Structures are given as structure tokens and as C-alpha cells.
């Protein structure tokens, strides 16, 4: 079981808890066997001679045993299930941490709801496997061994008979186990589908309303849920057949013992008392054996779910992509140190050809250019010509081919991601804001050295058993306050991004909590917040991917004016769908289907009389014609 082995490191940290839990199971099971004995002696004594004293003793003994048993029972649940809760949290933390380190490309093909289902629902099945079913398994084993030993001491032959159904049982466990595993995987996959549809449907609720397509959404959801039901049905039927098989095989064993045993008694090979005891133990054996059914079920579900989680865990993290950062772990340029004065970066693209996947046509073809500190390089071109793709390669949101993208002379693939990304202030075309305060969204990036990076794999030591049985600490009510980049920097960035008039209208200013995705801001306000988020870093390289498309002209002009001061030192890369906003760039690259077809300054390109000039003339014409 290769997949289970991957769970062992988590379990190993809690081996003490599991040991205590298993010990408690043994105590509980033993005491459960002892208590009836006490009652039996008491009754026997009552038949003969008894004193008040003795009677009180028996009564006290009963209560005492049950107290000990109670403590053991408490520990058993508390410790083992407690450990499973801790492991659950650790696995989920790791899962989340892994998700944050996966390359962006991974998320383009995955559905949010699916990943969420794996982190929540599937993990729950795994937890059941390493929690309650460990207790059940131990209990089954203990009772099985004890009952077997007792039976053997009476009649070895009949014990073998009693075990006759075991091969059938193990076959059933194997076969049904496999089938349950397979079907449960289907069930969980469909649950992912349901979760994804829910996620998508609720995220686009405004659009769905506007077009009055609620019923179609509900219909789609109902259809998926119905399929989920159907897959569950097939799983349940299988389970039913499995449980029935188990009941039957185990009963058959009891019947054999009864039948053959009674014959032996009649033949005088077994006393009546022994026979009665034997059947009693056989009955004892039956209870845990039936538990094997549900145990198999839980375990197979757990493994199936664990494999679904492993599928995600096995995705290579961005830093560990083949070739990435490996072939030449570059020296990080000295002046990148956080305390050094920050100039601009030299960005160089050399013969870059890029496609989104092996079978797909290239989106960028043989692109080369250079941007020096103090320069602004603008990318223009039709929708889908590859502007965003090119910009995404710089911070390695997309992985460029080796030897194509350089900053300060270093191939970006050789640079650790957090160091590379610290140099870049990126304003995406579609800004994403978080449900935090406005200030928290602006001071989003950690300051240098503070809690930076992609998260360490280390964890605190496993909690002691005492903590396991307490568990009342209320960690997790974390207060999310302003990030480390002080308020001054936030205000400065907000000023350049012309956010201040917005802040004035917000009820609590910078401390106003934004709603999910910042939906209580207008589109232009969101873009300006995203701009401030990049500016607050005062980055050597500023990347604006059509970042002001929803900002009105007046505000845009003001913002550009504000940016000018910083632009003298930093390097700026801009993609724009409006020519009006790039005319002053040091270098304009005109992209057509991923190829740079024209390059030069605005005047040079206009003089060239090519595509750019045509576009410019038409636009000018359109704007000025109607003025007159």
C-alpha cells in the first residue's frame, strides 16, 4: 500500500497517543469480560452464604471496575480520535501550503470546488480511517484473540471449525473492498462536480439573475446531484450485499459449531458445560467479526479519498518544476538586497517562443527586447496577441523556456521565486482583492524579511497527550490587522493610485473591510487598489497589464502624472489596449499573433506607416472627427 505509506509520517508523530489508545482498548475489552464474572460470583455467593459486608464489597467492586473501564474508554476516544483531529489539521495545513506553491498553470485546469472538496470531504474520510476505525480494529483484534484463546482451551478441533468461514470472509473483504474503493472514488469525484457547480453558480449569481437563467442553473445542479445520488446508490447496494455476506458467513460458522459440537457432546467427547461456554465464546467472536464489514468500508473509503488528496500532493511545486531553478542556481545580484538603494532592473527577453502546452500553437514567437532602468516599454496589439502572456513570464507565473527571460542579466529560471517576485510590482489585468480591510489589501505583500517566502515545511512539535485531552486553547481566533508595511507607505501608494477620494467616501476609511473579491468597490476603484498594492512595494520593476482599463480618463491622467516621479528610476513594462496611454513610452512593441511586427518610439512607428500608424490614424480620426 504505497499510498498508505505516505500517511505514516503523520501517524508516527502521534505514536504515543496511539499506544495509549490501544492500551485503553485492551483494558476496556478486558474489563468488559470481567464484569459479568463479578456478577456471577456475587450471585453464587448469595445462593450460599453472604454478609452485608460481602454484598457491599461486590457492589463496590462492580462500580470500581466500571470506573476504571470508564477512564479507559474516555482515554481511548479522547486520545485516538484527538490524534486523528490533529493529524487532519496537519494534513490540511500541508495541503493548503502545497496549493499555494503550485504553479499557476495548475489552477487554470482545475476547478475550485474540486480542490475544496478534496481538502474538506476527502480529508474527512481519511480522518475516519485513522481515528474511530483504529479503535474498532483494535477492539476487534483484542476480542478476537481473547475469544479464540478461550475457545482453543476448550476444544481445538471445534475452534478450527468455528474459523471455517474465515477464508470466505477474507475473500469477501478483498473483493468487496476493492469494489467499494472504486465506487467511492466515483462518488467523491461526483461530489467534486457538485461542489464545483455550486461554487461557479454562486460566484456568478449576478450574471445568472440578469439573464434570468436561475432555472437553468438549478437544473444543471440538480442533474449533477442526481448523478451523485445514482453513484451513491450503486455504492450502497454494494455495501448492503457485503454486510449480508458477512452476516451469513459468520452465522454459518456458529451453526457449524453448534451442529458438530452437539454431536460431540452426545458422543461424550465434550461436556455440556464446555459446549455452552464454547457457543458463548463463538457468539462473542461474532460481534467484532461483523465489525469487519464496516471497518473495511471505512478503510476503503479512507484510502480512496487519500489517493485523491495524493493526486494533488504529487503535483510538482512551482519551484521544483523540471529544470526550474536547477540547471543554474543563479547568484542573486548583490544590489537586490532589501536595504540597498533600489534602482530599476534590466529586463531582457531573448528569442522567446512560448506555448501553453505541448500540443498547442505558440502564443509568443521569437520575441526579443530589452528594457533598462528609467525606461518604459509598452506592448500593444490586438486582443489575444500575447501581451498578458509575455508579462506573466517575468515573475514566473508562467514558466519561460530556459535562456529566454533575464533580469539584470540572470535567467529568471535560476532565481528563487520569492526573491524574483520581490523585485516586481505586478498589476494584473483582472485585479483580485481579498476580504480584508482596504489597508490590508494595499499592504498585502509582506515587508522584506517578515514572514516572507512560500512557507516553511516545519511544524511545532506534536502536542503532548495532556494537550490532547485538554484541547481548550482557543488559538485560531487570529485578528487580522494591518500588514507590516506601515500606514505611511500605504497612504503614499494610495495617493499615487488616486485612491484617496475613494477612501474619503468609505465609512471607515482605510480600515473599511472589503467584501469578497472587493465587490463593494467599483471596477475602477478595484484597479486602483491593485495598483496601490504594487506601488506600496516601490518595486524596481513595475508591470502594468492593462491596469487602468476601467479608470476614467481624468483619474488616469492624474495617476500617470503621479507615476512619473518613480518612473525615472524604475523599469516599467506596460500592456495597453489604448494607444493613447503608451505614446510616451521609450519603446513600443506592436504584437501580432505573438510576433513583434513593429518596434520603435511613437514617432518612429508613425513615420514607419505600418500597422501601428494605421491604428493610430484611425483612432485619431475617430476622436477628432467628432470633436469638430
Amino acid at each position, binding site marked *: 500500500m504505497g499510498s498508505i505509506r505516505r500517511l505514516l509520517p503523520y501517524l508516527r508523530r502521534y505514536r504515543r497517543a496511539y499506544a495509549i489508545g490501544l492500551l485503553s482498548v485492551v483494558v476496556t475489552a478486558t474489563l468488559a469480560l470481567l464484569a459479568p464474572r463479578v456478577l456471577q460470583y456475587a450471585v453464587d455467593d448469595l445462593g450460599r452464604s453472604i454478609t452485608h459486608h460481602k454484598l457491599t464489597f461486590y457492589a463496590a467492586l462492580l462500580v470500581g471496575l466500571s470506573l476504571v473501564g470508564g477512564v479507559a474508554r474516555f482515554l481511548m476516544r479522547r486520545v485516538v480520535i484527538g490524534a486523528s483531529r490533529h493529524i487532519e489539521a496537519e494534513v490540511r495545513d500541508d495541503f493548503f501550503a502545497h496549493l499555494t506553491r503550485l504553479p499557476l498553470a495548475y489552477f487554470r485546469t482545475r476547478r475550485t470546488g474540486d480542490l475544496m472538496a478534496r481538502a474538506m470531504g476527502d480529508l474527512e474520510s481519511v480522518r475516519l480511517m485513522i481515528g474511530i476505525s483504529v479503535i474498532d480494529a483494535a477492539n476487534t483484534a483484542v476480542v478476537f484473540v481473547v475469544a479464540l484463546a478461550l475457545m482453543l482451551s476448550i476444544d481445538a478441533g471445534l475452534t478450527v471449525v468455528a474459523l471455517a468461514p474465515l477464508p470466505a470472509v477474507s475473500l469477501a473483504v478483498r473483493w468487496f473492498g476493492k469494489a467499494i474503493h472504486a465506487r467511492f472514488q466515483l462518488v467523491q469525484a461526483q461530489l467534486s462536480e457538485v461542489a464545483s457547480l455550486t461554487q461557479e453558480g454562486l460566484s456568478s449569481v449576478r450574471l445568472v439573475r440578469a439573464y434570468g437563467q436561475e432555472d437553468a442553473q438549478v437544473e444543471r445542479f440538480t442533474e449533477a446531484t442526481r448523478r451523485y445520488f445514482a453513484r451513491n446508490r450503486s455504492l450502497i447496494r454494494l455495501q448492503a450485499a457485503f454486510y449480508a*455476506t458477512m452476516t*451469513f458467513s459468520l452465522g454459518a460458522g456458529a451453526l457449524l459449531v453448534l451442529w458438530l459440537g452437539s454431536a460431540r457432546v452426545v458422543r461424550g467427547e465434550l461436556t455440556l458445560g464446555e459446549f455452552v461456554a464454547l457457543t458463548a465464546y463463538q457468539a462473542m467472536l461474532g460481534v467484532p467479526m461483523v465489525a469487519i464489514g464496516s471497518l473495511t468500508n471505512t478503510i476503503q473509503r479512507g484510502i480512496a479519498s487519500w489517493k485523491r488528496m495524493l493526486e494533488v500532493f504529487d503535483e510538482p511545486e512551482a519551484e521544483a518544476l523540471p529544470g526550474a531553478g536547477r540547471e543554474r542556481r543563479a547568484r542573486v545580484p548583490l544590489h537586490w538586497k532589501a536595504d540597498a538603494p533600489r534602482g530599476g532592473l534590466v529586463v531582457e527577453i531573448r528569442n522567446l517562443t512560448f506555448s501553453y502546452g505541448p500540443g498547442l500553437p505558440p502564443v509568443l514567437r521569437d520575441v526579443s527586447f530589452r528594457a533598462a532602468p528609467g525606461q518604459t516599454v509598452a506592448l500593444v496589439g490586438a486582443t489575444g496577441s500575447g501581451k498578458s502572456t509575455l508579462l506573466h513570464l517575468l515573475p514566473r507565473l508562467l514558466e519561460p523556456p530556459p535562456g529566454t527571460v533575464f533580469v539584470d542579466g540572470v535567467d529568471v529560471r535560476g532565481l528563487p521565486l520569492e526573491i524574483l517576485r520581490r523585485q516586481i510590482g505586478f498589476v494584473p489585468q483582472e485585479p483580485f482583492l481579498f476580504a480584508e480591510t482596504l489597508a490590508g489589501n494595499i499592504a498585502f505583500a509582506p515587508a522584506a524579511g517578515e514572514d516572507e517566502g512560500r512557507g516553511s515545511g516545519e511544524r511545532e512539535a506534536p502536542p503532548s497527550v495532556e494537550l490532547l485531552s485538554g484541547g481548550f486553547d482557543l488559538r485560531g481566533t487570529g485578528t487580522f490587522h494591518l500588514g507590516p508595511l506601515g500606514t505611511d507607505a500605504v497612504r503614499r501608494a494610495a495617493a499615487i493610485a488616486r485612491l484617496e477620494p475613494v477612501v474619503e467616501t468609505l465609512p471607515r476609511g482605510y480600515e473599511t473591510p472589503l467584501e469578497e473579491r472587493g465587490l463593494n468597490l467599483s471596477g475602477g476603484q478595484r484597479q486602483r487598489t491593485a495598483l496601490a498594492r504594487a506601488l506600496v512595494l516601490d518595486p524596481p520593476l513595475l508591470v502594468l497589464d492593462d491596469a487602468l482599463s476601467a479608470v476614467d480618463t481624468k483619474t488616469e491622467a492624474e495617476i500617470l502624472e503621479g507615476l512619473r516621479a518613480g*518612473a525615472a528610476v524604475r523599469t516599467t513594462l506596460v500592456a495597453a489596449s489604448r494607444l493613447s496611454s503608451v505614446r510616451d513610452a521609450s519603446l513600443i512593441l506592436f504584437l501580432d499573433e505573438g510576433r513583434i511586427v513593429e518596434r520603435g518610439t511613437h514617432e518612429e512607428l508613425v513615420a514607419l506607416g505600418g500597422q501601428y500608424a494605421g491604428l493610430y490614424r484611425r483612432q485619431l480620426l475617430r476622436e477628432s472627427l467628432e470633436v469638430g
Partner: protein
Amino acid sequence: MPNALGPGRGERSDWQLLWRLLSYLRPYPWQAAGGLAAVTANAVLQLAPPYLTKVIVDEHVAAGRLEGLGDIALLYLITLTAAALLEAAQTSILQLTAQRVMFDFRVQVYRHLHRLDIAFFDRNPVGRLMTRVTSDVDVLNDLFTSGVHAIFFDLFTLAGIVFILVSLDWRLALAAFAVVPLMGLITRWFRRNIRESFRDVRAWVARLNASLQENIGGIATVQLFRREAINQRRFRALDAGHRDANLRGMFYYAVFYPAIEIVATISTAAILWYGGVLVMAEDLTLGGLVAFLLYSQRFFRPVADISEKLNGVQAAIAAAERIFGLLDTQAEIRQVGARATGVERGRAGTSIVFEHVSFAYDGSGDVLKDVSFEVRPGERVGIVGATGSGKSTVINLLLRFYDVGRGRILVDGRDIRGMPLPELRSRFALVQQDVQLFSGTIASNLTMGSGAISPESVERAVAAVGAGRFVSALPGGTGAAVAERGATFSTGQKQLLSFARALAFNREVLLLDEATSSVEGETELAILVALRAVMAGRTTIAIAHRLATVQDMDRILVLHKGELREAGTHDELLAHDGIYAKLWALQCHSTANPNPIPGGRPGS
């Protein structure tokens, strides 16, 4: 907060909630009865093996008689087979019924969500709402598979055994039941605490989900700004909260179950002691005591069983509180019937009137202030203004995502609050700045599942907006796969698709909210030309900050800080020399004296 979602604590009693939960079994009377019958029959059949064993021992083994043993063995085999079949029946009936009920719940909750106010979604993150549809419903499974029937059956058994105990010896019965108040106390303690912790757990699950959803959706931003470590730490805090809430629940449960067992043993000890005293005083036979002891054991088995089930029931009630809390949240904006008297829809297109409309989103100042304007049928109106001046809000109100604060909005002469929502919205096609695409195909994204749109009109719409070139380059054309949120398209391409969607729906009024902000001028022009042809004679409201986009509209409205400050044609507004004229000058200024992007030239 009228619309906020919380578990309406203490409003409903457990019994009411439980009863309401059980009412979901009403569509399945046969399954419910069948399940109960199977549980009962199974329990009765459990008695057969001991009885048959007793017969074998008493009548055959003890008597040394082997003939007839075969018959009994056969009988045993038959009951065994029956037990196995019943086991199968019980499992499948109970679990399938539970799945049916959960199916009903899911669909009902999801449908209900699609009826709630948009303002509700402003306040409740999607990730949180997802738990109502997914894991909150899952929690109900236990109640319907093992809980209800078993408890019903256990209560039944309990009543029988109480009767037997009392009739055997009422004094001993009193001794046995002396612990019942103690049990009641323990149960109450347990119930109160476990409920609280289950509520906590559900709330933490919702928080975890919301965090997952937000972080996955914003993963690019998280990575770009190196927030992995911080967000991991925050997630760990949530996860720890979830874990500790569960551990608290675990604690109560781990105490409760053994406590009930201990109390049961105390009762047994009491019977033994008191019975022993009675036997010594020869007030009771030893046989009587033994019989009583055996039966009293049976009394505690269902009690222990019920307490075991109580956990699942409490979890289900905690989840039910949340689900019913959601289902009981009513939309304030509802599909009211015909309150209005008014003109029927004219052929010439739709007219729109805003009359002294003021509006504020929850908790902030007025976003629109006394806005009045009219859009005549077939008129094309542009709205311009700074970001945040309230342009999108105009559209939100027109579509009745929110209700106006003061004033009213008339569509075709009728107050929209008196119009059924589908009738109102079926007039509009909306193109937003933020494009929403679903996983599926291009065609399914354009139709959004509406069967009324033919494949041809999909093709036509794609071609009309100029998306034909990139769509036909995709494998499968309009049948090509679309990833969640259209993640494999460029932003401009997504906007083209959302335009195509508006065309495919072929509605009377076109609402464009900065719909061309992410496409370059050429494409924008092409779209507008195409639209002009397609939408000829239809009403259009276009929001834009690029004045060129709206300058040839029939009329232009200028919004400033929520007030309608200017209205008129492009030329009129220029002549008026107000806000619009200033904006225009600014734009022309930037055209004439191009200096907008910072950065010195290499040579300069």
C-alpha cells in the same frame, strides 16, 4: 443585519427542528416504513439464534438425542439467510432514503440561494454558502441512516422493558430507576455543550471553506505578492480553530458515553445490593433477583444505544439550524404579482424612467442622489462619470438587484417593484466589465443553459462580435471547452464572449457596463458597429469612461458623486462647458499632446 446568516440560536427548540427535519421523510412514506420494518424484523430475528441454541442444548444435547437436530440446523440456516437478507434490506433502504432526503435538501437549498437578494451575497462569501449545500447536508446522513429508526426502536424496547421490570418487582425497579435523574442531568449537560461545539464546528468549516475558495481564486495574487507564508499561517489558525472546536466536542462525547455506562453499573450495583439485602431477609428469591438483574441489563442497552446516537442527532440539529436559517431567510426583493396598472409593452422597444431615485448600499452614504432621467424606446444613452460615481449602481437598480431607497423606476410605464422579476429581467441583456464564464463549452456559456437559443444564433453572435477568428482556431469551435472563469482566454477574448452572449440572448434592451474596457480600440469599434446593426431600434444604455465609446449616443448622462449633473448630446454637452467638456478636453489634450506614460526615452 436583516440578511446576515447565522444560526438562529435559541429560537427553535430541538423538537421543532427535529420534527421539521423528519418532515423531509414525508415524500418517502414507504421507504420510511420499510426501513422501520426492516430494523424491527432484524432485531427480532437477532433473538432467533440464542433461542435455537437453547433448544438444541435443552432438547438434544442435554437429552443425548441427535435426531431432529438436522431440522433445527436447517431452521437456523433459514433464519440466518433471512437475517442476511434483512441486513441487506435495512442497509439499502435506510441509506438510500437518507440519500434521497439529502438530495432534496441540496436542491432546495441551492434553488433557494438563487432566489435570495443580491445584497445577501454581498454579505456572505461564496465559500461559506457552499458549506450549506455540501457538508452541512452531509451531516444529516447519520440522522437518517441510523439515528431516527434506531432511536424509535430503542424507545419502543425501553418501554417494554420498563413494563417488565416494574411488574417483576417494583421495589427493585425503583432502585434501578433511582439513577434516571442523574442520567437526565448528564444528558442535559452533554446536549447543551455538544450542541454549542457542533455549532462552532459548522462555523469553522464555513470559514475554512471561505478561506480555501478565496485563496484558490486569488492564487496568482497570493503568489505574486509572496503571501504564501502569511496566508498559510492564517489558514493554520483557522484549521486549529476547527480542530479545537472538534476536540471540545470530542471531550464531551468521550466523557458522556463512559459516564452513562458508569451510571448504568451503579444501578446494577444498587440492584445487587438492595436485592441481596432482600434475599437475605427472604423477601425475594434468588431466582427473582437473577431474572431482574438480567432484564435490567437489557434496560441499559437501549439507553446506551440512544446516547450513542444522540451525538449524531445533535450534529444533525446543529447543521439543520444553519440550513433552516438559510431557508427561512426571505428575499426582500420578490417576484410580486401585478400591483401596477400600466401600459403594455410597446412594439417600439422599452422605455425606462428614473424618478427622483436615491439609493444607498448597506451602511454607507447615498450612492445615488435624486437621480431622474428618461430613456425613450429605441434611444441609445451613454452614462459617463468618474469611477465610483454610481454608474454601475444605476444598472443594479434597473435590474432590481437592489430596491431603490427613494423615488421609483418605471419600465414601460410600470413601477418595476410591481413587475414579476422574470418579466422585468427578460428585457435586458447585460455585458459587464468583469466577465463571468463557466466551465463548459463556448456554446453553453453563451446560452447559459437556456434551451431557447439555437446553435445557429450562437454562431451568428460569435461572428458578429468579431470573436469568430479566435473561436474557430480553438479545437471544436463553439464546442470548445471553457475552463472555470474562462482561465485560458485573454481578458479581451472573455469580453468578446460576453458580448456574444448578450447578442445571442437577443433582448430588447442592451446594458453595457464598461463592456469594452479590456479590448483595444479596433476591436471595440468593430463591436460597436456590429451592435449598431444588431440592436437597431433597441434601447441601449452604455456606461463608459472612454468618451469616444459614447460620444455618438443619442444622449449622454454625466454622473458626478451620485448626482446627475449633465445630460444631452455630445455637442450640447460640449457647448454647455461643464464636467463633460472638461473630460473631453482632457482626453483631447492627451491625444494632442501625448504625454501620459512616464519614462524618458533612451535618447532624451
